[in-house]
């Protein structure tokens, strides 16, 4: 009888162990985005203008350099931060000033944002300032964004081009 009770206890212990594993190994389910939502990814890898424009060396300056290093033009390394503004139906959803990568801030400016959005039609407007100017934008684009639940659209900002990629539903 005691042996039977022991075996029953062991079975119960293993059963409890399995129940705990089964309960959390594949659930409860989780939704990364709210129901009826999609996602807009904004990805940028953009080379902005230099803070100081490149300058031609004068003949005197060239002569002062060692013969093997007599370049005609010198460029400061730093690049201006890139201002990115994204509006959806006129509402500002992204407003970021992205510094160029690297210790000298001489690389591309990288940005990656994930924006959950309710499914629907949107007027997407991208404004970019990547020069030392204080006002206005160097690039502006408008796109029509049609988002269905579960869609993940991609706004890709490169060095000179911008594209909005919508999911292929075929």
């Amino acid at each position, binding site marked *: 009888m005691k042996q039977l009770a022991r075996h029953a206890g062991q079975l119960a212990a293993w059963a409890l*162990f399995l129940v705990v594993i089964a309960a959390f190994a594949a659930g409860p389910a*989780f939704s990364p985005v709210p129901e009826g939502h999609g996602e807009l990814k904004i990805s940028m890898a953009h080379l902005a203008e230099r803070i100081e424009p490149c300058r031609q060396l004068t003949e005197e300056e060239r002569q002062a350099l060692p013969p093997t290093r007599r370049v005609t033009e010198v460029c400061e390394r730093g690049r201006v931060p890139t201002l990115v503004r994204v509006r959806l139906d006129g509402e500002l959803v992204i407003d970021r000033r992205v510094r160029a990568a690297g210790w000298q801030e001489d690389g591309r400016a990288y940005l990656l944002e994930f924006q959950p959005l309710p499914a629907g039609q949107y007027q997407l407007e991208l404004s970019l300032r990547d020069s030392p100017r204080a006002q206005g934008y160097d690039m502006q684009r408008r796109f029509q964004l049609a988002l269905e639940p579960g869609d993940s659209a991609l706004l890709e900002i490169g060095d000179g081009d911008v594209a909005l990629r919508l999911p292929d539903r075929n």
Partner: protein
Amino acid sequence: MTTPAMRTMPGPARRLLARLELPLSRAFEGVHNPMHHLGALTIFFFYVALVTGIYLFIFYRTSLEGAWASVEYLTREQWYAGGIMRSLHRYASDAAVITLGLHIVREMIRGRHKGPRWFSWLTGVPLIWVVLWFGISGYWMVWDELAQYVAVSSARLMDWLPIFTDPMSRNFISNEAVSSRLFTLIAFIHLVGLPIVAVLAIWFHLLRVRRPRINPTRKLMLGSLAALLVLSVLMPVYSHPPADLDRVPLSLDIDWFYLAIFPLMSVTSEGFVWLVAGGGTLVLAALPWLPPGRRTPAAEVHLPDCTGCGFCAEDCPYGAIDMVERSDERNFKLEAKVNPDLCVSCGICTGSCPSSSPFRQRRPLTTGIEMPHFTMEDFREQIDVAADKARGALLVFGCDHGPRVDRVAGPRTHTVSLPCVGMIPPAGIDYAMRSTGYSGVAIAGCEGCDCHHRLGDDFTRQRIERERQPGLRRRVPRERLLTVWTKVGDEHRLEQRLSDFSLHLAELPAGEEQSNSRQTGRREEEVQ
């Protein structure tokens, strides 16, 4: 009769833990209680995941197109082997998280992370990360919607750290951005890199532990494997639809054991997850020193009594004793040397020392190696303190970490609580019966495979059975000796066993060992 003050009383949390574990001890006969083998079970589940993982990898294709399809083939077409192997792989990994978590909590509650044990605790902390990386990287390999979520989320987590100039997440912005080489890389990390790191980390974790128990009992191995197999058959693991980076998964059946940080990140932020993970790791790592406590004094070698036999060095569960060249004039080659940084003050070395004999007519009584806070003189005094009432009475040796023997003390029961029952020298049992005149001796220590100092119960048993030196002399009547291995909080059972033992003793005829203590050469102060 008197009971000496216990040095470290088990706190309420420890007593509660022991109470919760009692039903398991009843069912698994103590020694097979899974709670006593949590670390070993974690390693066993790692083995299961390793073997099943090798099988899965034979069929796995490390390419963007092949990853999901090959796992799907294993799951659906080869369900009888590959499918079960996959489920077993997943469930063994999940089981490892459960046993690992319980192992951490249990060791902390039992205070086994403090003092000289800090090293094992600290080197165990990175193992938590290794286990998590194992799980996360494994989920990448399936390349289904869950893998997509895990890949993007873990890349975003990494991007929060100021390491990468080009965000890692940009590798997952579109289906075209993902390269087949990713799967070669992740397979290498999951199958080669992390197992090597895990084995090294386990080695470090056990470095300061002598005779580590890296395998659970056979019964537990078979039981847990059978249980996981049953679950694998009843609830096979399936993949989500293949990953599509043009879509965002709407509902995911998350493995909360490994992936809970990602939903946490989704509802909070990457920074918050790092704060929890980093802060939690730091707090865990600092626990051995929080709050700072006073250390129990380490064992001390008394050279005039040390013959350099090496039994103490052999028995020390933490390798705190080295045998070094003799430093005095005596004609022995070696002497014991204690490393106080490794000594947990269990006193097992005192129990192993052949010089630890209360029969010796010396005052104060010394031995080759002993604990400054509980010397052999104290030990003999505790036995003798009730000598006038010893005849026909019962002496119960207990352990500060096992059942509270002071709770069973009575007019005919004298109790002595020690740092560990492994501290009892076999000659002490002989002395209690032969010289002091107790009618019987009971030893109540921690339950099988659950000794607070790891090996005290094993060594005591082996010394009684004369399987380990110094062995209990043959002349000691074994029918007058009782061993009870149980948990703190299970004093009722101890009381019951002692009551039965007393009845048993009453039925025994008085042997010559039960002669008057004054006729059998008692300690010198009593003889005089």
